[in-house]
């Protein structure tokens, strides 16, 4: 819906926001251009492609991967990513025996510098309530059936640590360039609700 569509009256919520923002601007508490700048940044300047670059780099560079797992924040910063809600990063490696999946049951905590703002499903009561108690059912709803011999480890990011899953490099990608690998890394695979495939 276009925000320039004047044929529909603004919703009650839009009016309430306008009243609050206008008041804060009139009192000199906030600068409306700064409000715009914050929104634009999160809409256009950060997103899952950042995290995908981190993952692809870890797949091709074993030393980087080791640094990433030892100190997520510092290694991610080597690629130029960091900041608000990414100050304390922990990277979780998926292995043959462990599959990690991340949630914030209490609200919506999420690693913004590497993944952008969270998708609606991540913030939904359905995901927040169910993935801690029945992760395999939830992952199946995402189309991923976790093998019986794999442990599912759910991380609830209830404090200020923010988690990024390092998915396993898919089979059949031997010799691929980092740029080509980058295209395989999905947002869901970095949250843990899916895995990347070469198909």
């Amino acid at each position, binding site marked *: 819906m276009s925000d320039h569509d004047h044929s529909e009256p603004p919703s009650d919520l839009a009016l309430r926001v306008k009243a*609050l923002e206008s008041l804060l601007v009139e*009192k000199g*508490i906030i*600068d409306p251009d*700064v409000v715009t700048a914050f929104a634009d940044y999160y809409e256009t300047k950060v997103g899952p492609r950042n995290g995908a670059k981190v993952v692809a780099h870890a797949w091709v560079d074993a030393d980087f991967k080791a640094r990433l797992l030892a100190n997520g924040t510092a290694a991610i910063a080597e690629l130029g990513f960091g900041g608000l809600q990414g100050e304390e990063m922990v990277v979780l490696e998926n292995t043959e025996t462990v599959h990690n999946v991340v949630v914030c049951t209490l609200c919506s905590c999420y690693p913004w510098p590497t993944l952008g703002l969270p998708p*609606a499903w991540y913030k939904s009561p359905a995901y*927040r309530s169910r993935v801690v108690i029945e992760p395999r059912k939830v992952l199946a709803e995402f189309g991923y059936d976790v093998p019986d011999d794999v442990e599912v480890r759910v991380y609830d990011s209830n404090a200020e640590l923010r988690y990024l899953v390092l998915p396993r490099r898919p089979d059949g990608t031997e010799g691929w360039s980092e740029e080509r690998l980058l295209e395989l890394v999905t947002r869901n695979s970095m949250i843990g609700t899916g895995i990347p495939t070469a198909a």
Partner: protein
Amino acid sequence: MNTIADMGGMHGFGPVDPMADGGPFHAEWEKRVLGLTFATLGAGLYNVDEIRRVTENIAPDRYLKMSYFERWLETAEVLLAEKKTITRQELATGPASVEKQTPVVTQEIAEQIVRFGGTSRMTEGPAPRFERGDNVLARNIHPAHHTRLTRYVRGKAGVIDIDHGIFVFPDTNSRGAGPKPQHVYGVRFKAQDLWGPDASPKDSVQIDLFDDYLEPA
């Protein structure tokens, strides 16, 4: 607080819709809410723990009916009034006084905020009571104030996987009682210990618990 926000383990919310996304913002007003929240947070008018306290305190029936950014809006209105930055009357009829301040968060400061954030890690605090490998019990406490100790682990036994270091304590920071810095641990709980014998014998949940939330098992 035992609020609706503490919903880990609840049943009844139905299937997750993996396609529910459509980009971070679904309306122009949502962008304004995010921006004004960051501009007021960045000005030091309140802290993130206070934001969470106010949001989770929304009555359960209203909380569940509200969209995500609608909760941000409600929180901003309540918290800014609590802090006396605005009054409810002013929302209806405009500023009470002609006196105009200068916004603290400029474009330059906004850029610093997004690029560097603001960690709640602290350099000094009491010595940790636990270390990796320790068996611990999450306390069975039900404080009336904000806490990040979820109900689904209270009274349950887990193992310390990692000491993350020292952080600001949300339980006090959310109500003007200071940072009370302390160690935060990644504590791993077996699924069956949390959810009973029908849960997977293999799976686990790891959650970050403050020193004050734990006692030795």
